């Protein structure tokens, strides 16, 4: 019984494959005219629809564009083949852009032949296998790819099963059996895998080295000697099927290589025997190291001082020492035979075996990579690095062009491309995007334009905040250490002046003097003022000591429900105190539950929700998921926020629905009805988990929403679930040297055909190249056009009140991230309910 259970991936009941949902709709499509090419499909207008057919679909209970279309949807497609809806919007001004993609011209009559190769006796090291097989290149032809197990060629060999013989460098005879497996056509996904392998082979011709998953150029390394490290420039390439064509995406990336091995660290540690071990351990634990001989990276979990390279271990029944092992397998001589050994728990292997597999490493052979936390907090180091890694658009484009040029002119790489008939375009892919219209920011007495740079900081001089307390901020407390009383007077003066200019009355606070700046003094003062029930507590602190900050926040948000503001002496002594005071005044306004500015929302009854997760800094197993929901922003510009604890190991959220239910309840309380439309932005997840997100989160929410609305006798809800990711690889450029302006939308050419997705550049950056944000509408029955979804997303990027400009992700997601981080880093507990409608976490 056990064997059957383990390997079996087929459903238990003998399901007729043709009746499963994936299969059935497809057979229906093939009956219709299949000649339509991609460009025809996209050219149709997005607004055309058949109201009756559309409504009929809606009534069916199963909602529109989920990933398993039902039969009726395809009947709809068959009767009107030219009107397939497009995911392109129409609003905004057209703009020509370049992107970091190159077109790949392939020929449809290609067929790649796939073989499986076995060695007798078997060889473990794939490089040795590749070496031996390369002796037979005459038989295999010049264009072949072998990764150690599988062989791909362009031409079919004479026989289905070929037997070859070879000799390794150590003069051992091997028998090689090459078996035909099948053909790979140009429409199979494996074809793309092979294309990526071909590209990698051709890039190897440029003398690039594989480190981890990408190829880097050690010859072009940039030394940063002051910090004992080098930056290796490299390329992150991937060939994928995009909206109409197969494109190669190339992104410039850098690897941080420290110029020392773990052995060097060992030597640097104190020679004092009592401290030597501890110091070494402290320096080396949790480092990621690279071993050159197999090009793998490991994380160091422990150091074993009891063993040396001369110790033996069990290798296939024989007892062999590390020295002998490395000599035999990799031809490496270990110089210091007395060094301690490093332990790494190999987590990948743990999946296959029952216990966690332990890997033992030699310090001499481990090269240190990556940055430690110490290095990350070293401001000078990060600045030195960012000079090289943060590139302006023109530099980036230049590097991409040079990479392409190298690829197409270096003999070795050209040979590989020619052998496989691969034709790579020389120029960056051009595409058309649109710049969405500039938004209007709504203040108390009127509207002001956000400006072409999406920055309205200047508007505060002439405008009043949208909503402020009618009686102003009265009944509040400021806690000041004795020696900072001068600073507190300066701060209050500026605060009141700045706030007054924005229509926000700040009255004199109650002052609580404390005699030192130790944490308990602040806490005691906070407790003492509880009697007067302050609306807000402001603490003036000498520096941003994290422990004091956490204690203040915890007292204010977990033990009690009072918004707090922490201001450091540095801010007060700053020359630009007026602009800092303006920002603080806006924050205070928000923490009381009022709104600094708003945006025009062209529809009522819309609730936008953002969700993000942050890990706990104290407990590695915990994380916190935060959900922030807007009310109906046309009439009520307040937000509801809630946090729940979850496991740090779970990618998908388990407590999403209870949190959403709370948000819906609050909306109902304030508006006496449930929202008409719900737009959900999911952050904190990578695009690799889309299918699981759908199965686990989306389906659950849809089912629960339907139930809730039915119980309330309301019309069924319109719901859209959008996955927000910071795109790592995609870049857009304008005019060959600039960043695209804020509000740029791209929804064609480089988007993925199997998704309803678009890219939006919402923010303005002054340094380097901007990273667009990718939005993927995973589920929608919200019945907005793509245009409307894009525009409302861009509008939502204008509402983050800590910043008088647009943010990279919609404000609700940014709030969720801020809240989750606050709880995970400082509070480590769930804040009180009474704060759920205030921006206490700003």
């Amino acid at each position, binding site marked *: 019984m*056990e*064997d059957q259970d*383990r390997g079996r991936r*087929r459903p238990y*009941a003998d399901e007729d494959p043709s009746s499963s949902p*994936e299969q059935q*709709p497809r057979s229906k499509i093939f009956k219709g005219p299949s000649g339509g*090419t*991609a460009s025809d*499909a996209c050219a149709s207008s997005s607004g055309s*629809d058949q109201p009756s057919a*559309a409504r009929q*679909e809606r009534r069916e209970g199963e909602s*529109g*564009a989920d*990933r398993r279309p039902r039969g009726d*949807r395809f009947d709809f497609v068959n009767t009107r083949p030219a009107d*397939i809806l497009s995911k392109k919007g129409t609003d905004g001004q057209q703009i020509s852009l370049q992107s970091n993609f190159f077109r790949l011209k392939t020929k449809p009559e290609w067929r790649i032949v796939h073989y499986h190769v076995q060695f007798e006796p078997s060889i473990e090291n794939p490089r040795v296998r590749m070496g031996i097989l390369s002796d037979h290149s005459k038989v295999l032809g010049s264009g072949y790819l072998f990764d150690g197990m599988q062989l791909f060629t362009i031409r079919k060999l004479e026989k289905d099963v070929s037997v070859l013989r070879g000799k390794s460098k150590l003069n051992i005879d091997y028998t090689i059996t090459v*078996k035909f*497996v*099948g*053909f790979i*056509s140009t*429409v*199979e*996904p494996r074809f793309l895998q092979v294309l990526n392998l071909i590209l990698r082979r051709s890039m190897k011709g440029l003398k690039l080295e594989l480190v981890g998953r990408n190829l880097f150029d050690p010859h072009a390394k940039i030394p940063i000697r002051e910090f004992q490290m080098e930056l290796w420039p490299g390329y992150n390439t991937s060939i994928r*099927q995009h909206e109409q064509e197969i494109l190669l995406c190339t992104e410039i990336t850098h690897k941080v290589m420290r110029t020392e091995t773990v052995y060097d660290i060992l030597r640097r540690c104190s020679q004092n025997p009592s401290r030597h071990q501890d110091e070494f351990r402290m320096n080396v634990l949790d480092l990621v190291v690279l071993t050159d001989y197999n090009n793998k990276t490991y994380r160091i979990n422990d150091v074993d001082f009891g063993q040396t390279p001369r110790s033996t271990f069990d290798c296939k029944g024989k007892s062999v020492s590390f020295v002998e092992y490395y000599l035999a397998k990799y031809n490496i001589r270990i110089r210091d035979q007395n060094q301690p050994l490093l332990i790494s728990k190999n987590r990948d292997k*743990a999946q296959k075996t*029952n216990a966690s597999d332990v890997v033992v490493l030699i310090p001499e052979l481990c090269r240190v990579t990556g940055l430690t936390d110490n290095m990350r907090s070293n401001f000078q180091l990060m600045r030195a690095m960012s000079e090289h890694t943060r590139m302006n658009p023109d530099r980036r484009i230049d590097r991409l062009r040079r990479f392409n040029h190298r690829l197409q002119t270096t003999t070795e790489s050209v040979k590989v491309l020619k052998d496989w008939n691969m034709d790579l375009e020389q120029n960056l892919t051009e595409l058309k995007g649109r710049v969405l219209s500039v938004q209007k920011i709504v203040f108390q007495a009127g509207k002001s334009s956000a400006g072409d740079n999406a920055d309205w900081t200047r508007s505060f001089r002439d405008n009043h905040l*949208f*909503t402020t*307390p009618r009686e102003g901020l009265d009944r509040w407390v400021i806690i000041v250490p004795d020696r900072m009383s001068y600073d507190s007077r300066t701060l209050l003066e500026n605060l009141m002046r700045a706030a007054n200019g924005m229509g926000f009355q700040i009255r004199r606070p109650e002052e609580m003097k404390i005699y030192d700046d130790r944490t308990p003094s602040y806490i005691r003062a906070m407790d003492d003022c509880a009697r007067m029930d302050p609306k807000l507590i402001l603490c003036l602190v000498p520096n941003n000591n994290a422990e004091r900050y956490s204690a203040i926040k915890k007292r204010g948000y977990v033990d009690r429900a009072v918004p707090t503001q922490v201001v450091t002496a540095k801010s007060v002594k700053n020359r630009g105190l007026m602009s800092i005071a303006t920002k603080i005044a806006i924050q205070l306004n928000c923490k009381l*539950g009022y709104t600094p500015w708003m945006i025009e*929302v*062209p529809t009522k009854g819309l609730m936008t929700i953002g969700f993000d997760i942050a890990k706990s800094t104290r407990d590695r197993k915990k994380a916190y998921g935060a959900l922030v929901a807007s009310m109906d*922003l046309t*009439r*009520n*510009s307040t937000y509801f926020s*809630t946090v729940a604890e979850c*496991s740090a190991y*779970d*990618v*998908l959220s*388990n*407590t999403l629905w*209870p949190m959403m239910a*709370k948000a819906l309840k609050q909306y109902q309380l304030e508006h006496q009805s449930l929202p008409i439309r719900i737009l959900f932005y999911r952050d904190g997840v990578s695009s690799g988990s889309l299918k699981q997100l759908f199965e*686990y989160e989306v389906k*659950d929410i849809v089912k629960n929403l339907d139930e809730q609305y039915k119980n309330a006798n309301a019309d069924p809800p319109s719901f859209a679930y959008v996955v927000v990711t910071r795109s790592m690889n995609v870049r857009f450029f304008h005019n060959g040297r600039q960043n695209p302006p804020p509000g740029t939308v791209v929804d064609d050419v480089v988007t993925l*055909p*199997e998704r*309803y997705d678009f890219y939006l550049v919402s923010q303005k950056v002054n340094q380097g190249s901007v990273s667009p944000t990718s939005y993927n509408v995973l589920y929608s029955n*919200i*019945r*907005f056009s793509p245009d*409307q979804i894009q525009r409302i997303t861009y509008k939502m990027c204008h509402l983050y009140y800590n910043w008088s400009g647009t943010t990279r992700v919609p404000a609700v997601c940014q709030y969720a991230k801020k809240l989750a981080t606050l709880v995970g880093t400082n509070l480590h507990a769930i804040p*009180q*309910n*009474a704060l759920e409608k205030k921006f206490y976490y700003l």
Partner: protein
Amino acid sequence: MDCDESDMVYCPYNKAHKMLRKKLQQHIIKCRELYKDTVNLMVCPFNKAHLIPEPEYYPHLKICDDRKIIVQYQTSAAAVLSEDTKHAKIECDENWDDDDTPDYNPMAYCATANIVREPTGMFPAQRKAFIKEENKRQLGADYEEEPRPAKGKNREENRHAPYNSNKQRSGRRY
């Protein structure tokens, strides 16, 4: 679920399935489909990761840790904002209230487009059938793959003494 990240956990549907803690969610998505008729586990409304057999369901609801998400909300002071946080309706040039546009379905585009499609989340047999259909659709109905060599032949060539491999033993049972 409090364990170290290198710990292995068991699938609640089948104790024989063992995996890393971080893969548990993905596994449950697949396993709950397979076992939906045989093993009846109910999902806790407070936390989807809690899968409880039916007899223990109601007792669990009373002691579930994540009740506090809802209970804390119900029992502690509600979040109330004062009246002056409200404002008049913000007028806007456009009105999308009555707009009704059908939602874009990417699958409809893919089904007729000249592109490589990825069959995600299917079991191997379905995957092969999908690829075969795609080949026919795009390269012509008469696209024929050359017949592959029968797999059985290879196994016979490599077979050692009968008592060596487990697989062969179970193969003999049929």
